[in-house]
């Protein structure tokens, strides 16, 4: 355990945990909202095939293009085909895009690719991996931010600079990138099956810029993000923001197909000012199989607020080394088992169950991890590998 990690996790915990308590106390309606959301998400998991079909149909109806990728490689191929010869690409932070290796793949193909989330941008220039599912650069102290910016962006910034000076330097750089970007790739906090809308929640404004400035918007996400209705999608972004510690969020973005106008004789014309193409890339990558497993499917209810990380003793000590980025921490260990078939990290769970207490979706994470350990033993026996 490095002292920098200790310092970083201590500071973040002290900041985040009381902030979430305060938000939940100030907005008591969030309690019933999260219960309704869990029910809505379970309804999708009970009929996943049907909801994928409805979602894709709705996206098409709204003028967008829906794609379904079986795995990460197929997702990269789809993104490649959409981008074609375009060179300048911006991404907003997306765990699923990271899971599919999209940024690295595009860079390997010689594209000009930039992350626009402050934390993710820092990781990109520092060539480091995310340490938390939301606060991706949680392992970096302010001083480390300063050193990386000094080395990679602006020599006038150093470890003694204020956070505001650091943010201003990154902002100047990113504003230039928004101007030239041809393609914007985002994730999705929720996808509404009834309208084909993608809902995204954020504070920085980078998701809004990424999804509106370039003429092509690609939303890459897992099939677990589908919810029955647009109303449920709003519930998901509200709960995600609150339990992540940012409520009310600065921005909630909803995208339903390409940009449009109804100003000429009330006819819907596409595109208008924003993107002329909208693509939704839904990724399976083990999720369908998990949904069919009565015990593992609980993990698919995760809305990735990252609150469980702050309640976990193993993560407190190991950080991103517990699991494989972007999926570390209690929920990340479940996700590694689902999308990578890697169950080994589950054996490090202490079953302290703090994660279960703080989970807005009431996922019994220690019980799921116990089940993953159990299935790992069975695999070992079947494979005779130990």
């Amino acid at each position, binding site marked *: *355990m490095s002292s920098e990690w200790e310092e970083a996790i201590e500071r973040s*915990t*002290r900041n985040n*945990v*009381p902030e979430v*308590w305060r938000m939940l106390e100030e907005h008591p309606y969030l309690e019933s909202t999260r219960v309704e959301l869990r029910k809505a998400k379970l309804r999708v998991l009970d009929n996943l095939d049907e909801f994928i079909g409805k979602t894709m149909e709705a996206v098409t109806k709204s003028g967008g293009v829906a794609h379904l990728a079986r795995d990460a490689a197929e997702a990269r191929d789809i993104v490649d085909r959409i981008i074609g010869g375009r060179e300048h690409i911006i991404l907003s932070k997306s765990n699923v895009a990271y899971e599919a290796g999209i940024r690295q793949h595009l860079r390997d193909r010689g594209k000009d690719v930039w992350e626009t989330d402050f934390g993710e941008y820092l990781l990109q220039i520092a060539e480091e991996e995310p340490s938390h599912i939301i606060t991706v650069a949680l392992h970096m102290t302010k001083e480390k931010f300063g050193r990386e910016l000094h080395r990679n962006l602006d020599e006038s910034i150093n470890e003694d600079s204020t956070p505001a000076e650091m943010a201003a330097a990154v902002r100047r750089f990113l504003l230039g990138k928004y101007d030239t970007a041809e393609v914007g790739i985002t994730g999705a906090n929720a996808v509404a099956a009834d309208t084909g809308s993608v809902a995204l929640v954020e504070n920085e404004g980078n998701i809004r810029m990424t999804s509106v400035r370039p003429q092509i918007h690609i939303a890459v996400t897992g099939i677990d993000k589908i919810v029955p209705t647009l109303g449920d999608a709003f519930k998901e972004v509200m709960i995600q923001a609150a339990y992540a510690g940012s409520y009310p969020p600065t921005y909630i973005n909803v995208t339903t197909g390409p940009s449009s106008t109804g100003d000429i004789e009330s006819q819907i014309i596409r595109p208008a000012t924003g993107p002329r193409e909208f693509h939704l890339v839904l990724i399976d990558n083990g999720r369908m199989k998990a949904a069919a497993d009565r015990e593992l499917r609980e993990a698919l209810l995760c809305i990735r607020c990252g609150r469980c990380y*702050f*309640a*976990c*003793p*193993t993560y*407190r*000590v*190991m950080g991103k*080394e*517990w699991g494989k980025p972007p999926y570390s921490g209690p929920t990340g260990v479940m996700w590694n088992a689902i999308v990578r078939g890697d*169950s*080994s*990290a*589950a*054996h*490090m*769970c*202490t*079953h*302290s*169950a*703090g994660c*279960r*207490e*703080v989970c807005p979706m009431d996922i019994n994470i*220690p019980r799921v*991890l*116990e*089940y*993953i*350990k*159990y299935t*790992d*033993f*069975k695999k*070992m026996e079947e494979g005779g590998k*130990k």
Partner: protein
Amino acid sequence: MADNASVTSALLKRTVYRNLMKDYLPFPIDRKLCARWAGGIPEGGSSIIYTSMMYQMAPMFKAYESLLPRAARLRGSERLASLGKFLFKPKRAELERAYAILRNIASMLSKSDVDFGYLHEKEPYSGAILIELGMRDEFIEYGKKLTSFFTGLGVERVITVDPHTTNALARMKEYVPSRLEVVNYLSLIDGARGEGKFVLHDSCLYARHLGLRDSIRQSIGRTGISLAEDRMVTGKGTAMCCGSPVGAVSPDLGEKIAEVRARALLSVGGSVMVMCPMCYQALSPHIKGLKDFAEVVR
């Protein structure tokens, strides 16, 4: 680290399960030593105090933890684990402490007019380690054997004294339905008295898995002991583990978690109390004067 954990877990699975199915013990354990505290308690009966040898052998479990990863690295060296009987024996002072705790629990139960016997040298281990490490099939098989064992002896109620055993028997009922009543001693002791102010390190199993966090605080409050609380350290969703449960698969990780937890507890107050022998083992090297609840009430 995670791969090593898998290998260690696999080794544990083979050795512990084999030992349990053979003679109800996870490792070679001196049963006489475990039963020595209980002179005067009647043998058997329909209601028994059930220690599962946790207090008596907690120091030895920790010693095994340090052995297992080495054994896992050597692969196939299962004999190492079976040598425990000769390599590890709790120190006299540790045993005397465990005996005193158990005698006090028995005494508090008697004062509360609870009738109970004890299985003495026949007492089996609960199988807690199996379910905690994810060995569900083995836990179920052992659960069938253990349930039959209790039923065969005419046991209708077991009074547990530690969280691991209480949790294991609760879980066992999910898979092996039985009429065996499981009750924890904390809910039976009336009129126990203590004094002082302590920081309580909650057992994860009592507080969160078994949902006893509030009732335990009420029980403690009735004894006259007060608790120092800090929501960031002793809250339901913030109180972290002592590190012990992961010690069997990764002693280094367990140790680091214990250090972090001890620091947090000491930031709330200097007198710290636990309710679990495994928590005591994990935290006592880092917290001077650490006490078990059954050491501070009478």
